[in-house]
């Protein structure tokens, strides 16, 4: 790929133990182009979240990157010092976690949580922050007059959208989303991902999307990588992963959950 925004090259990550080390990510390479949505699918423990954390250098010991490079817009993330890292996180790569809606500070109003970030990174005054906060809330379909509310006054789906709005505040080039809608129900999930899809067309950021729901992933992603035991066993366009999976594990993943839309392999029912 020419000029990928994110390029993970031959990345290996180990969890260092007392006696043995556990290799969570094993020689993984993939690229994400500007404006592209790339999906990583696999079971718990396959290393997909470890990669997500490593991209913003948020992994903590005992996790150790023992090989490879992570290039974001031409810079190697692994070479950044503390100051550069502080300017890199949020500015270039933002992250949404699975339980992100619980990551808002419960005792601060929404506007102060935006101000925290905008003051620190952009030196905004309160009035400037409020203006930017209104813009960002509007992007995720939340009325701007609710910025004076506290997190508990919002539903789970709205809180998740607020977190996404905070992620967009510094106009990052890449948003890493680790199971962003797993805790939400289908209608809310659809509304949120549909909005993110429109926003990435409009604002041009890339998304690294992690989930275990392959059906959802095919709907949302341009390209998909399938992980098994720390290895990237298959990658291809969403259409290819859906219609013509080549690796046995990908086929097994497709067979392992009942699909509502495809004719289900109905087993005999007790009548």
């Amino acid at each position, binding site marked *: 790929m020419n000029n990928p925004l994110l390029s993970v090259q031959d990345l290996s990550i180990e969890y260092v133990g007392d006696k043995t080390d556990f290799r969570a990510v094993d020689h993984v390479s993939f690229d994400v182009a500007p404006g592209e949505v790339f999906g990583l699918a696999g079971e718990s423990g396959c290393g997909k979240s470890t990669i997500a954390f490593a991209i913003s250098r948020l992994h903590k010991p005992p996790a150790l990157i023992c090989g490879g490079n992570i290039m974001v817009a031409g810079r190697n993330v692994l070479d950044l010092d503390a100051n550069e890292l502080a300017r890199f996180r949020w500015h270039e790569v933002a992250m949404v976690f699975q339980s992100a809606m619980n990551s808002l500070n419960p005792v601060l109003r929404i506007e102060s949580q935006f101000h925290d970030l905008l003051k620190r990174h952009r030196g905004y005054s309160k009035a400037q922050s409020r203006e930017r906060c209104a813009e960002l809330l509007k992007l995720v379909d939340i009325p701007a007059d609710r910025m004076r509310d506290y997190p508990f006054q919002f539903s789970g789906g709205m809180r998740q959208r607020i977190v996404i709005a905070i992620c967009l505040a510094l106009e990052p080039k890449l948003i890493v989303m680790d199971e962003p809608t797993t805790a939400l129900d289908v209608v809310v999930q659809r509304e949120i991902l549909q909005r993110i899809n429109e926003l990435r067309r409009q604002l041009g950021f890339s998304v690294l999307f992690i989930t275990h729901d392959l059906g959802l992933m095919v709907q949302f992603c341009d390209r998909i990588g399938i992980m098994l035991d720390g290895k990237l066993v298959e990658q291809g366009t969403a259409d290819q992963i859906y219609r013509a999976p080549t690796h046995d594990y990908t086929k097994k993943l497709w067979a*392992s959950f009942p699909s509502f839309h495809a004719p289900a392999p109905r087993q005999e029912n007790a009548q």
Partner: protein
Amino acid sequence: MTANPAIVSLQNIGKTFHLGAHKVRGAHDLSFDLKGGRTLALVGESGSGKTTCARIIMREYIADEGQLLFHGAPVTDNTPKGLKQYRKNVQMIFQDPFASLNPAHTVDYHLRRPLALYRRDLKGKAVTDEVHALLRQVELDPEIVAPKHPHDLSGGQRQRINIARTLAVGAKVIIADEPTSMLDVSVRQGVLELLNRMKRDLGLALLYITHDVATAHYVAEDIMVMYGGQILEWGDVNAVLSNPQHDYTRMLLSAVPNPEIRFDDPQSRLDPASVNAVREQAKQLHPHIKTAGPNHFYRHTAP
């Protein structure tokens, strides 16, 4: 189906929560039967009243209106003894397999406790034999699993222990509240199949509560769609899913992930304004019941 009597029935159950002056409708006019050898799925969004419904059946909440029947007789005995007798027959499996087992105790202990409480006829080696039989029933190897602690087990294995625990009590009705939503896709199906097999072999009645329509379609014979404390549409699972009548059911089904439709396709767009309109409409009281087929009903605001 007519020859199969209901084990637990709800008749016109209602429940309102009072938050100061504010009233929240938790359940309104719920009527359904749980029958041996059948699975009834209850689907809806978060906050639709699914768990309230489960708690009313477990008698954690006392309904404000209506009746709960057990084998045709109203349940009225609210003494600890009466509750224990009822819960011997009606048991629950919770969503979070990581939180519902005590981390300080072994699997063996978790299964001995219900046996000591509900199966007092078993003594000595008979208890050990029963624990092993239960573990085999949920497809776990007793020699390996019994001495382990919950943290040694995967989520799927833990959920199997929870199922074994309900069987230890000798439950006839199992209320499963999102039993697979926290499990990996690859183990999900194994747990669902185990529940299906229990239902067939032991004649259990199962209430499967979920927001995942795809798995409901897979395990259940009947389905109910709930929103705002009301059951808006119910009946045979194929009839409801292939020919939904209520606007809310249609919207819910259209939001189920479908790899055939890309988000980029403008035709597939779910308009937030119309979603809200459907929700607002679904919140209103729907006093009128209409028939769409032999075993397919829905509610309507107008006669």
